[in-house]
């Protein structure tokens, strides 16, 4: 009986695309032992997901694989080379020898079937009778921590929360007791507090079920929390493989070192914020605010006959000139809604919201249009924030055209070039189309467009959450630099406490549409007063395996205290 559940030997994967063949994985060799968590980290495009999918033979038709992917069955009695398997043999291996946990739990479950049916489906495909399968489904739901599994087994996916759905996806992976679980970004779509719970569950998969886990992630905190061994991928190759503590304490390659350096830590932005605060004049605090919200409410209208959804419930906020307010909260906390309301994209339904001296409750679009030239907005998704049919220069020139500062995109070209240089993009990039730029470059062009008219207020809605860590670090640096030079006030929205801490003067924490806590970074993140903030902070995994182990205990104590 061997102890190695997965052995990958010089795996290569090529894709046929419209632009010719592209190689995604180039000679990767890896091994996973029983009861071991191997984390594969790397930036987007480094080939980590393709590697993971080829373990289960889940590559799309356009892909061609070479090399060996040896999967051992749980009892070690048989071995299969997944690359060579086809049809029925491949289906027999899937689920029994290796199972997959997907990134997005809401799309990994079929909405028209009960979760029990979906778990039973997998069992029956491997020849278990219906009654036994149902019993097993209830057992496994209980094992992954779904309360009342007898009842819940007949519920539909939409009746579960995001975290519970991911538990069910993990249950589906566990139900046949495979020797190996492939988890592709299992917590990326989840909030930090939920993420901590799912990581605990995955740890139990390893400890209680003895499964080997291949964890694909870009989050170094998650790696530090869960992994035993780490493989760093870069341009389709594994460039470094080490035990998790060794990797974090003594990275061998330049790339790994740079990757680790780019990860933001909570507490790194405090000195910068303090320096900015001390340089301000004393009467600054009493001056007129750029944004002043009192009792702000935003209700989204419901369907016929249903009451609307109150996304924001009585929030008081002030942003003074030149100040960066960081707004953090989990998904659904109303942070994006507040940003959109300030930009006039969402109607204010209650309370008062003053933006640059204009009341937005009941404002008409026509009156507000002139004020818009004084507000900039940076969107979350760099992929869709540019019109695919226009060049970057034309898009950045758009504000000048709309507000009558130029007749023609060509007239504004000089200013556009200056702006592109300000965000550290070469002038020649102005002639490119958005799809020819990378995510980070597009996000910088987006920043250029937002500051084109020298706005007094900038709203940045999760500007870096779609970017890789190394790219994020550069964009944040650039943001801080521009803010220092141009002195605009800013509402910086993010779900990542460490990112907000880096850029913000003050931090406001939102929870279910209400403002929980507000203060400077040192106050809110250093000594959080509210239980919610404390839990949020404790849930955030830090990219340091030793520190993370102690933090895990703190969080457990905190959770126990709440019960």
């Amino acid at each position, binding site marked *: 009986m061997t102890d190695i559940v997965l052995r990958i030997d010089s795996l*290569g994967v*090529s*894709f*046929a695309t*419209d632009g*010719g*063949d*592209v190689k*995604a994985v*180039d000679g990767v060799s890896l091994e996973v032992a029983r009861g071991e968590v191997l984390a594969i980290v790397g930036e*987007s*495009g480094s*080939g980590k997901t393709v590697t993971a999918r080829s373990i289960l033979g889940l590559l799309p038709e356009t*892909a*061609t694989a070479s090399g060996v992917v040896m999967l051992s069955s749980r009892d070690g009695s048989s071995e299969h080379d997944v690359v060579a398997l086809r049809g029925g043999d491949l289906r027999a291996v899937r689920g029994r020898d290796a199972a997959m946990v997907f990134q997005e739990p809401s799309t990994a479950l079929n909405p028209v079937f009960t979760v029990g049916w979906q778990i039973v489906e997998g069992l029956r495909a491997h020849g278990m009778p219906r009654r036994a399968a149902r019993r097993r489904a209830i057992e496994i739901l209980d094992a992954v921590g779904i309360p009342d599994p007898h009842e819940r087994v007949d519920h539909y996916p939409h009746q579960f929360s995001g975290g519970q759905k991911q538990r069910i996806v993990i249950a589906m992976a566990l139900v046949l007791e495979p020797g190996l679980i492939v988890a592709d970004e299992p917590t990326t779509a989840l909030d930090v507090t939920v993420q901590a719970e799912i990581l605990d569950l995955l740890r139990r998969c390893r400890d209680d079920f003895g499964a080997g886990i291949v964890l694909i992630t870009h989050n170094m905190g998650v790696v530090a929390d869960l992994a035993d061994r780490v493989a760093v991928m*870069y*341009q389709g*190759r594994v460039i470094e493989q080490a035990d998790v503590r060794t990797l974090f304490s003594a990275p061998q390659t*330049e*790339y790994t070192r*740079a990757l680790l*350096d780019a990860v933001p830590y909570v507490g790194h932005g405090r000195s910068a914020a303090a320096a900015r605060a001390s340089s301000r004049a004393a009467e600054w605090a009493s001056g007129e605010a750029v944004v002043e919200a009192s009792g702000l409410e935003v209700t989204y209208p419901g369907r016929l006959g249903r009451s609307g959804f109150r996304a924001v419930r009585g929030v008081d906020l002030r942003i003074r000139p030149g100040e960066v307010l960081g707004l953090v909260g989990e998904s659904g906390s109303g942070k994006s809604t507040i940003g959109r309301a300030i*930009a006039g*994209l969402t109607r204010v339904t209650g309370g008062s919201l003053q933006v640059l001296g204009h009341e937005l409750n009941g404002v008409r679009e026509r009156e507000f*249009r*002139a004020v*818009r*030239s004084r*507000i*900039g*907005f940076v*969107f979350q998704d760099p992929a*869709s*924030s540019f*019109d695919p049919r226009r060049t970057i220069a*034309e*898009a950045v020139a*758009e504000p000048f055209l*709309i507000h009558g500062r130029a007749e*023609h*995109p*060509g007239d504004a*070209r000089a200013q556009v070039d200056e702006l592109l240089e300000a965000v*550290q*993009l*070469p002038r*020649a*990039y102005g*002639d490119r189309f958005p*799809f020819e730029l*990378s*995510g*980070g*470059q597009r996000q910088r062009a*987006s920043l250029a*467009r937002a500051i084109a008219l020298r706005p007094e207020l900038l709203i940045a809605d999760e500007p870096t959450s779609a970017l*890789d860590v*190394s790219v994020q*670090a*550069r964009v944040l640096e650039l943001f801080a630099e521009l803010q220092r030079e141009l002195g605009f006030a800013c509402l910086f929205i993010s779900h990542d406490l460490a990112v907000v801490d880096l850029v913000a003067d003050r931090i406001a924490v939102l929870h279910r549409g209400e403002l929980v806590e507000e203060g400077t970074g040192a106050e809110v993140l250093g000594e959080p007063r509210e239980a919610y903030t404390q839990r949020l902070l404790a849930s955030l995994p830090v990219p340091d395996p030793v520190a993370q182990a102690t933090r895990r205990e703190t969080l457990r104590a905190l959770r126990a205290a709440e019960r």
Partner: protein
Amino acid sequence: MSDIVRPARRPLADRLPVVRDLRRAVGLQRGMLIAGLVITAVFLLTALLAPLLAPYGFDQLRADGEAFGAQRPPSAEHLLGTTVGGYDVLSRVLWGAQTAVLVIVVAIVLSIIAGVLLGLVSGYLGGWLDRILVVVCDAIYAFPSLLLAIVMSIVISGGQSSLWGGLLAAAISITVVFIPQYFRVVRSEVVRVKSEAFVESARVLGAPSGRIMLRSVLPNATRTLPLIVTLNASEAILTLAGLGFLGFGIEPTAAAEWGYDLNKALSDVTSGIWWTSLFPGLAIVLAVLGITLVGESLNDLADPRLRGRRRAGVSSGAVAETSIAPAAAASTASGEDDHR
């Protein structure tokens, strides 16, 4: 559009809709597209060159002072024989292509403009206008187009009609039926594009609605139009032929029309005179088939998931430049590059 110099644009052949699709198609999809394009090209050329190709005029009954005679089988003078009315079948079929192209053009021009504009405004503005338009369009869906065409033809010219009377009857009824289709397709695309960040970004910049609709939304919402246009075209031919077949068609002296000829050939079939019905019928089938093939393959090729590709060679291709180490990136201006 602007006087900005653009150094590197893709070659023209890669940007023209049909040519681009033809270049990247492979296998069966390529075969279908080429077959469709060839049939459609022949159809269009026939329409264009009908005066040169046809041995006789479409309403010609006699040559050199001598009548053709009715229901003559194919012969050297009349390659495809003559009809019961004494017309030359080959000439009628060739001239009929011209009428078919005219009805397509009129139907498309009438319906595409109205349908696209209504869809754009309705999808972008939403609200009560949108609801009313959607309900009206649903109601029109429930209405049989041929019935509408008959009503139109009676309204326009009392049933038996001239070239333009018959054409317009078919084209207008097609327009009424197809406006909802253009409307639906454009509206759903507009609703999708409307929520994209670049449209919101134009709103945040303070651009007026008209400008956003025409400059940002419309150019990005026309993806599926080619497919609807081809459906529209084949439906137009079928409706015109249907009108003719039911006896509401165009007088043989005004223009050649396949449906009319089929109608007149009805009684011939039972008496073994096959040539009067076979060729006009074949013309209708081929014209519709060609256009539909083009439409179907364009639709499949436009969707990356349906588009066939050659398989990649084992371990072929180069690893794409995905990232530069962040430390190195800090020193270069155009530093990082993640996935493309």
